[in-house]
């Protein structure tokens, strides 16, 4: 089995960017920043919500000019299409040039689609309901540009787009794409606006991060960068704006919304990115910080950045937050803020933070850029973001066109699956392939009943299933838990809709009680990575992390990210969990998506414990080795031209959301894997979307372990097919047969 041409030395460079924001697009961004314009202003639409503030950075003109299409698409899709068009133009790439390239789309999104969902539900309009799920925004853009590369939707709230950019780099280095379009888009829904008010975190006027007047301003927009390898960019004489040299992520495992008060999570994430880039903290000239303006974030984040760059010494790098330009654009924040630096650097400047008359006590002693752009062409800069669920991301970039020689990467670690578990109508683990408990009753799984120490009050159904499945898997893995270093353990979560039952209660509150009665206790569970945060707290996960949403492929996408992080030894242990709950609204959404058996959906979760060679205990026998992850687009007959060779596969397990896609995939895979003894579908009595990939993988592992000597299954291909007919897969080797590195 050959995983085709991986090259860690391949340098990912940014050759173009595009944005739609409250202070303008590619044409007007720099001029707006130079003039010190903020996109945050009083919004008439929000004034009627009777909240403490009605300020936000909305794209009012864009919304007005694109109103005709807003019945068909959420604005997140429309913002993104415009931003990607600008990014491609900026990179000098035409759609014709993309036609024969593997163009990946890595799309960050936090809470888009809520407005169109509520409209759709009110009007019983399935076409609108269909536009709701986060992945739909990504899929719309993917299909608008007729892209033939992989599609990933990152939904870790405010770190979604920076996660997307980071993963895009990995795809280039792994030769899974020729060009990556990475960034994020978010449209600000009334429900989200009200939700932030319930947390008392919204500024009465324009936010002033680091200032004594605290509070954030919400925003919306889209930002995308075009990434390609330095080699490809140089070959076509593209203008290289920056080189993405390192990335990192971490989990605080501290609180659902508040950051760890000393910024330790931020520090770990940035340190990881610096190490990845092979650069010391003192070499960083500038950091674009998350800088929301809230009392909990700014001081803690600056502490974390200082610790990563300068240890206990004062920080010398300049720092600013771009939130006062764009507002907090949530799923698009990381991308927009990175673009603000790229745009300023094009003219030899650094972005400023607006409106800071007096610096807050815990933000003093830093080289803050205030009010006006700072004239400074930097060599190295970093960007940090943090999100609900305690997720932090960092990017380290080298500015300008000079392509530096990358550091020599560490040798790859082998990646194994140590254990698995699943909870649906029963509980199953790797240790016991039959149900370890009696079939669950109608009330479903209760974390409080099984693991009271892991249960917290008001814990959502999805979190309970996810934490429970992870706990069963960890127990089955036999891995030492007390001595485990939490910072070397990663958390990866996959969910199509998140905690839909909580979201439903929130919708009801909005409709019946009004925006000023949205409950803070519910709102925090409505972000799609809320369960990842709960998982991190329950299992002390402080290493790398990502959150994916799709319509069937998110489980294997989460595994893919874990595979990269374990292989690069960023962490040595990973929990990969996929799950969903069941509610009236989720059933309605799946019916609108026309997935099979939408009404049979029930809460479920599947979990894998993955380890690399460093994390593999000497006395532990892993279940299988993960050799590679890949994607195939079968829509409109498209296939990746440089597919991983599948000729040696012994067996294939495939899962799909619809029967006809399943049959199509079985047929295609039979052709691609001529040696396979069989191509079998996932056997499951209930609809599962997010976890179908992991369940197919578990079925593959079961079949591997029950192999007979007459017909050994040494190499198993696991594939899931989503609603867009895109396949994601991974190849498993039985450990005995896996080639040693």
């Amino acid at each position: 089995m050959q995983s085709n041409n991986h090259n860690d030395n391949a340098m990912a460079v940014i050759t173009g960017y595009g944005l739609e924001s409250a202070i303008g697009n590619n044409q007007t961004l720099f001029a707006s920043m130079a003039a010190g314009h903020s996109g945050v202003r009083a919004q008439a639409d929000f004034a009627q919500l009777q909240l403490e503030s009605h300020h936000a950075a909305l794209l009012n003109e864009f919304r007005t000019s694109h109103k005709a299409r807003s019945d068909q698409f959420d604005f997140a899709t429309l913002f993104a299409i415009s931003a990607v068009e600008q990014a491609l133009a900026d990179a000098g790439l035409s759609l014709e040039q993309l036609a024969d390239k593997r163009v990946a789309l890595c799309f960050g999104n936090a809470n888009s689609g809520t407005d169109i969902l509520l409209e759709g539900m009110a009007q019983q309009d399935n076409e609108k309901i269909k536009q709701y799920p986060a992945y739909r925004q990504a899929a719309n853009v993917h299909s608008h540009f007729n892209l033939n590369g992989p599609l990933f939707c990152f939904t870790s709230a405010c770190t979604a787009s920076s996660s997307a950019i980071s993963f895009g780099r990995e795809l280039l280095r792994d030769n899974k794409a020729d060009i990556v379009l990475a960034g994020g888009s978010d449209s600000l829904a009334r429900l989200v606006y009200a939700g932030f008010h319930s947390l008392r975190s919204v500024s009465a006027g324009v936010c002033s991060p680091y200032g004594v007047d605290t509070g954030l301003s919400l925003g919306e927009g889209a930002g995308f960068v075009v990434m390609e390898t330095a080699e490809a960019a140089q070959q076509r004489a593209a203008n290289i704006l920056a080189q993405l040299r390192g990335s990192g992520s971490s989990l605080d495992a501290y609180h659902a919304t508040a950051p760890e008060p000393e910024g330790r999570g931020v520090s770990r994430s940035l340190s990881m990115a610096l190490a990845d880039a092979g650069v010391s903290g003192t070499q960083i000239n500038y950091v674009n910080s998350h800088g929301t303006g809230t009392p909990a974030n700014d001081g803690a984040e600056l502490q974390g950045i200082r610790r990563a760059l300068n240890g206990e010494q004062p920080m010398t790098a300049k720092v600013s937050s771009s939130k006062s330009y764009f507002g907090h654009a949530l799923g698009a924040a990381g991308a927009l803020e990175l673009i603000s630096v790229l745009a300023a650097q094009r003219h030899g400047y650094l972005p400023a933070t607006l409106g800071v008359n007096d610096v807050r006590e815990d933000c003093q002693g830093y080289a803050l850029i205030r009010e006006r752009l700072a004239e400074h062409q930097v060599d190295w800069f970093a960007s940090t973001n943090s999100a609900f669920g305690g997720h932090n991301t960092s990017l380290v970039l080298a500015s300008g066109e000079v392509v530096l020689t990358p550091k020599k990467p560490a040798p790859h670690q082998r990646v194994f699956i140590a254990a698995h578990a699943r909870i649906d109508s029963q509980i199953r683990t790797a240790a016991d392939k039959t149900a370890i408990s009696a079939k669950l009753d109608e009330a479903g799984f209760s974390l409080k009943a099984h693991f009271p120490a892991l249960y917290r009050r008001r814990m959502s159904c999805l979190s309970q299933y996810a934490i429970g499945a992870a706990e069963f898997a960890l127990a089955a893995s036999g891995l030492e838990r007390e001595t485990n270093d939490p910072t070397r353990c990663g958390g990866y979560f996959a969910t199509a809709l998140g905690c839909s039952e909580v979201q439903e209660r929130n919708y009801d509150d909005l409709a019946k009680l009004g925006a000023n009665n949205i409950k803070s206790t519910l709102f925090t569970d409505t972000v799609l990575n809320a369960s990842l945060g709960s998982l991190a707290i329950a299992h002390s996960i402080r290493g790398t992390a990502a959150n994916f949403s799709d319509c069937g492929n998110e489980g294997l996408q989460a595994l893919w990210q874990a595979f990269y992080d374990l292989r690069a030894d960023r962490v040595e242990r990973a929990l990969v969990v996929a799950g969903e709950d069941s509610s009236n609204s989720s059933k309605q959404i799946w019916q609108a998506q026309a997935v099979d058996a939408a009404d049979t959906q029930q809460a479920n979760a599947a979990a894998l414990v993955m380890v690399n060679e460093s994390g593999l205990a000497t006395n532990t026998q892993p279940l299988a080795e993960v050799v590679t992850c890949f994607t195939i687009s079968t829509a409109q007959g498209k296939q990746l031209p440089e597919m991983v060779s599948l000729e040696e596969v012994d067996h294939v397990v495939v899962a799909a959301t619809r029967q006809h896609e399943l049959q199509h995939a079985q047929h295609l895979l039979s052709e691609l894997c001529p040696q396979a003894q069989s191509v079998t579908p996932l056997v499951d009595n209930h609809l599962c979307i997010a976890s179908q990939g992991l369940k197919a993988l578990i079925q593959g592992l079961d079949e591997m372990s029950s192999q007979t000597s007459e017909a050994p299954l040494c190499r198993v291909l696991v594939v899931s097919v989503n609603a867009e007919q895109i396949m994601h897969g991974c190849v498993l080797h039985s450990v005995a047969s896996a080639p040693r590195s």
Partner: protein
Amino acid sequence: MRHQQVVAQIRVLMQHSLEIEVSELAELDNQADLLGAPLFLDSIDMLQLIADCERHYCIKLYPQRHTLRNCVADLATLIISQLGQTQVAQQHLHRFMASDGSHYDEAGLVELLNRVLSFSPELARLSKTEEVQVAQQNAIALMLTVFSLLLSGRTPVLGGNDGLSWQQLCAGTDNGEPATPHCTGLDASLMHRLGNARVGFLTSGSTGKPNLFFKSLHSMWSEAEGICQSLDLSGYALINALISPQHMYGFIWTWLIPIRLNKPVFYQDAQYIDATPCGELSMLNILVPSVWDLLAHENLTPGSAVISSGAPFGARREAEFATLQKTVPQLSGVEVLGSTETGGIGFRTIAQDCIATFTLFSEVRLRLDDQGTAILHSPYLLSDHPEFVMMDRIALLSDGRIRHLGRKDKVFKYKGKRLSLEEAKQRLQVFFGTAPLKLFFVEDDNDKRGGQLLAFVETQSQQHPCEQALRDAFRDYPVPNIALLPSFPLNQMGKTTLSSLLEVTHAKQ
């Protein structure tokens, strides 16, 4: 308010909102740190608890709460302190005020009622079997007259110009003797006691024919209760009545609801419009669309609200309201759909909901029969009416709301044929473009053809259409008699009626 009571209420809120079990709460000491043992709440729980307390007591606890410990006892202390400040701010307000300078507290009104009930010769003279027409007068005097009649077992009729006045009732009552306490307070118990009593409302009606409708006090009080359940009105410090309680909408919103909420009310007399003495407090402005412009006299405070009913609020006012929202933080508005016959049907948020989409009040049910006719079931209907057949076109939305599509296309009978009024209107619009016009078919038993078609056009032009062209356009229809008016007259409820149009037309002629 006693500290213990507030502590008990906070515990109830914690149980329900934070999903804390009673057994866990039993272990909680009032001085214990809520973020620590035994509950280990987190900051999000605290935010929700504070929000619940603010809502329950209609007060603001931020940012003062930052200075206190996170324990039930301190939270109760803060609530009591904030309640005290709100009460101080409201102290300068009397319960019943009017723009002519008159003002009364509840006890004062009760004393006046009891004097009239005990000593009024005029009241004693009135028959108990006949309805009593009440004169148009100052709103407070009007309601004192109404309640004197109700408490003495008589049936008042409102809406006419002439009739019994408060001044007449008071004559001869100032005799220095103590009055009998017929009434002890203006509150819910009084409304329940008078539940079966009826009030007559004389309406002009959109067709110009006056109608007299009787509503039971029980029905109207139920409606006030239902409104308070559907809309959170508890946060407003003052009700500013820009309409009179002589119409049913005003009776409920400017008399019964202030009593239900125990809030002061300020009646704007049409002759003495004055700024409302609300200071910095938020107020609930009750109006009909025709008096919308009176709001310009008000110094609208942040968080205030507008309630409109009686006629469609309209797109122009909708836009003006949205503009006003930009200058008045947290200004909100609600349009109530309903009539004297139907009572309140539903409501919508102005400048937010679709102009025709209404949420039904919780006790109101609406269904469409096989012909698509809307049938209303409501406890707010006229006495002895289990249901009401609406003459409006209604669409039922899947979320339970309704879309009001206007009055049904009326059909009139002319020369034995059924003809569409809407069709006639469209033909006429060819001659007048977008100018507002109203069309009526006035039935006449003495006319063999059935009656005549009257058209009124709001236009500055005095040029009538060419008669031949008009005849051509109305070949199979009666040719309307057209009156050109510079502006349509509005009645007190902001409506244009046939009678007022005829009046203006005759005066012009």
